[in-house]
């Protein structure tokens, strides 16, 4: 149970000023920070207001009780007090906001609750609504590794002006006793965070079994299952921190950026545990890299940082898969009226996550969006995902809309650590080529990997490859030539 919460002074003061100037009767938004189980402490990095919903209305509003006789809840409870008014919150919208925002957060930063800017009496009248909002957020973005079932509810009251923080326990049914006050103070949180960075390469070979009536048929489902197995494997991974083996009892990391490398069992595919001699209809190769960051409070043990970075890697892959599935859903909704057959062909690219692999008889591929890092507060980063078809403008929109921050003016401040997806293997390869190659593809030197986009695929392939070969041959000849010239010179001089 978190007992004390520290908020980042520089941010919260700014937010308080902004709120008082805006003179809105209420505002709801997300609390970004970290709940540390080991320290029993919460850290608040920032508060982000939930944007207007699709109808263009704010996510929270006050309804004067006097005008609101029809409201059942109010009717039973309220006494005729002039200043009492009920708070109405678009809970689904806040949850959706949390879902979107959490995709943009890196390791060690999470949506840890909800804040509300409202007067004291309305707050008191609406605790149940607020708790439900908190629960909605919690359900939308559950913590992956801990069983912490509590979130924060921060109330900024305008008359009198003060901050209070409550711990909202979500273990049981929500009652008025779910809320417990906790100690809240302002301080410096962000500047002392420690930064961990990791590049994680993976290459999963997911066999697709021929199972009639199997529930797992779609590509997205196969990928999701593969990811969850992989998450377990990663959980037990050993790691190197700055090139040294991470020792359990080493408590605290020194200052500076820490490079994390993960070591996994050598050729020991955990997902293969369960079957022997099974029929397969194909193999799904899922490979690439994830660039990851995690932030750690200096008082937390180093093992926590490793957990955060592992979670970030898996979350990043899951988020990307979700984004692709969302796209596919949106796409299929838009074509619902059109001729089914024509529509299928038109939007083949976006429909790939929904492909039924049991029936699929042709090679197909699905490029995941790449992750980019956007400078956020005090030297930290947040991230966003860019599909091959999108530009950096999308990302700026996300920053403004979801994170309510200024879009970075200078594009060069954005870290694009990941390049676009690479086709390690080409469409010309057959199932048997892949089946025989095991996990070896990753280690091939640069020259053999040709980067292609979908457009370039069919006719250009062989030419590209040949070009690559040619340049190697050319380089080789240049090398031989220079050696010969050097030798000749040497002989010439020594004579």
């Amino acid at each position: 149970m978190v007992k004390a919460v520290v908020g980042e002074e520089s941010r919260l003061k700014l937010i308080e000023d902004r709120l008082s100037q805006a003179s809105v009767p209420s505002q709801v938004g997300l609390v970004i920070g970290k709940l540390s189980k080991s320290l029993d402490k919460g850290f608040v990095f920032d508060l982000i207001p939930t944007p207007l919903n699709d109808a263009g209305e704010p996510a929270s509003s006050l309804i004067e009780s006097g005008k609101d006789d029809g409201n059942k809840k109010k009717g039973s409870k309220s006494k005729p007090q002039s200043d009492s008014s009920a708070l109405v919150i678009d809970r689904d919208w806040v949850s959706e906001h949390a879902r979107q925002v959490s995709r943009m957060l890196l390791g060690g930063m999470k949506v840890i609750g909800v804040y509300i800017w409202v007067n004291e009496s309305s707050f008191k009248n609406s605790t149940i609504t607020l708790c439900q909002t908190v629960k909605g957020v919690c359900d939308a973005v559950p913590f992956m590794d801990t069983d912490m079932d509590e979130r924060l509810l921060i109330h900024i009251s305008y008359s009198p002006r003060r901050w209070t923080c409550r711990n909202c326990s979500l273990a049981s049914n929500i009652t008025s006793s779910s809320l417990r006050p906790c100690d809240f103070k302002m301080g410096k949180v962000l500047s002392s965070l420690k930064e961990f960075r990791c590049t994680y390469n993976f290459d999963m070979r997911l066999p697709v079994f021929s199972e009639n009536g199997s529930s797992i048929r779609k590509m997205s489902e196969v990928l999701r299952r593969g990811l969850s197995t992989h998450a377990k494997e990663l959980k037990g991974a050993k790691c190197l921190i700055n090139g040294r083996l991470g020792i359990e009892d080493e408590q605290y990391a020194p200052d500076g950026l820490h490079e994390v490398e993960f070591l996994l069992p050598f050729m020991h595919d955990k997902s293969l545990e369960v079957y022997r001699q099974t029929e397969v209809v194909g193999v799904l190769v899922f490979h690439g890299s994830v660039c990851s960051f995690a932030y750690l409070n200096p008082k937390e043990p180093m093992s926590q940082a490793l957990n955060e970075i592992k979670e970030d890697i898996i979350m990043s892959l899951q988020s990307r898969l979700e984004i692709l599935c969302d796209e596919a859903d949106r796409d299929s909704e838009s074509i619902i009226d059109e001729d089914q057959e024509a529509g299928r062909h038109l939007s083949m690219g976006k429909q790939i996550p929904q492909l039924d692999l049991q029936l699929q008889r042709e090679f197909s591929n699905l490029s995941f969006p790449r992750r980019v890092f956007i400078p956020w507060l005090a030297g930290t980063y947040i991230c966003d995902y860019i599909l091959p078809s999108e530009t950096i403008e999308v990302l700026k929109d996300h920053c403004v809309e979801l994170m309510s921050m200024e879009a970075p003016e200078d594009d060069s401040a954005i870290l694009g650590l990941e390049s676009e997806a690479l086709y390690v293997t080409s469409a010309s390869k057959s199932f048997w080529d892949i089946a025989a190659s095991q996990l070896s593809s990753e280690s091939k030197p640069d020259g053999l990997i040709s980067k292609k986009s979908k457009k370039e695929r069919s006719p250009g392939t062989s030419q590209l490859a040949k070009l690559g070969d040619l340049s190697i041959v050319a380089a080789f000849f240049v090398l031989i030539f220079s050696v010969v010239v050097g030798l000749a010179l040497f002989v010439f001089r020594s004579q």
Partner: protein
Amino acid sequence: MDTDIQNSNIRILCRKLVLPKLHDQSAEIPQIRWLIGSPFFPSPTIIATIRCINSADFSKESDDIRILLPKGFEVIGALIVKNDPNFENSVGEAVDAAVRLRKLLYGDAGGGFSEKDQMLVGGVVDLNNAGDVQFFTFKTGNVKKIEKISSILYEEQPEKYVWERGCLLQCELQIKFPVYYPPKNPKEVEKMYIRATEVVVSNLVDLKTTYIMEANGPSAGEQPVVLSGTDLELHKEMSSTTSQESKVKTFACSDLCLKAGKAISYTSIEEYADIIHVSILSNRSKRSLKPAAPIAEYYPAVEDAKVLVVDHKLEVLCYAAKDLSLAAAVSKLIIPALVDQILSMRNKILSHLLTEHPQLQPYHFVPPGFFIPITIFYELSYGEMEMKQVETRKTLHIRFGLPLDRPLLRVVNAINLSVKDNKTTGSALRKGSSLLKDVHLGIPSSGVSGGTVSLIQGSYEYYHYLLDGFDDSGWGCAYRSLQAIVSWFRLQHYSGIDVPSHREIQQTLVEIGDKDPSFIGSREWIGAIELSFVLDKLLGVSCKVINVRSGAELPEKCRELALHFDTQGTPVMIGGGVLAYTLLGVDYNEVSGDCAFLILDPHYTGTDDLKRIVSGGWCGWKKAIDSKGKHFFLHDKFYNLLLPQRPNTV
């Protein structure tokens, strides 16, 4: 053939060269024995000899030796044992055998550490000539020029010699990979499996592959050393040495050797030798390319396809000189050893990949007379006692010159070097050692003048009344005697089962129908016959029973008992009308008929204090009639002697 006699000498580390005894039926003459040395020792040094058991098929022999012998030890020559006075002939055979086998084992280059013109050793034993061994050396460059060795140096403390200079590297690797194949053409599975193993081999030297080396034991204060692919000597052209890497490269095995001669006497290899554990992992964060966003590619099978999951458990041991760099130890010992093991495993299971699921697994042993480990693959899907396995073990016993009636190479005999398991066996050992072992050692002599002492062979534990806080005083003596006998079979590695409790003994008797269920938990006595039932049921051991009507007849059975101890060597239970004892030996003078019995008395109720036990006579020599004229065996009571027969198996 030139024969030079020079003042060269040879160092021999095996206590005695294990030579076949003439009466040994298995000793075929002539035979070849391989001389084992190490590239880390001054040549010529012989560490051990191993008998050649495929003299007709050297390619099979080399396959066996390759797996058997840890890397870091090697065949440095051959010894010919025969009944042929023609020395020259035998020399030629020894040279030929050594050169041929080495070529198969190490190729023309001669292995990772050997020089091009390696000095090899030959030896000749002429059994007609009192079994004298004559050694000579020759160089691979010129096998005609042999040099006789004039003096043989026997090392006093061979264990010390070997384990002070070097350490043991242990690497366990479990790999699991899918093998896809078209069910229409099952032959294809072999091809795919071969390709898969090739991928494993090539991945071992991949830049991403990381080797973590740590000192043995939980108390290890030393930091593990992490070697990445670039640190190994395999990628000389690629290694861009930064200061960090070059530092890693300078680590030698001695940096992870903690014992450094702390152990005074050799007890077991696990206790004595410095052990470095090597684990192999795959670094998922090596930045070879600019990281690329993920992509999923689906390759549908155009025809029917099946997948088979192959799971191999590899474990290699290697011997490395302490001044060898860790990088060299990995690239020249560990990796080649793993490759050998993978390929050997592949050859063994290739043909029945689909029909059976062979569970081949490597085990390591230090057979009696050896102080270096050897590695053996066992296929245990049908258990250890399956005929094929027994045959395999028998051949191995012959190879190592071990007796054919003792199990010495069963799984329970294997040494266990892995870190995790070390703790559990450690605690088991402590639990075992809480019981007194071999209490008869150091007791006063029997006082039989001119007698011949025949004793049990091997160790046992002393089980007596009230042990482990279980009150069986007055009724449990036969149970305790049985426990001591089971402990003997256990310690002799005939069985891995725990010594049964009183209750378990009673349960066994009920199970076989000898007793009613009410017997369980009772305080009823059992006798020699019940013991034989339990031994048969739990251990598969059969027993011989000797009955005497009176205690006075017992001395007459001394000759038979002496024979039992000489041939079987198992503890004997004395039961019958009165008390139960365990008999550990007899001292018998055939001429005078004077005799004494070495009795282990289970009726002792005190603490495990060896002094008290011996001074109280709870373990000691008993004469049938002592100096005071008192009879140890009662004349008016009958006695049953239970003589467990040692299983004649390996």
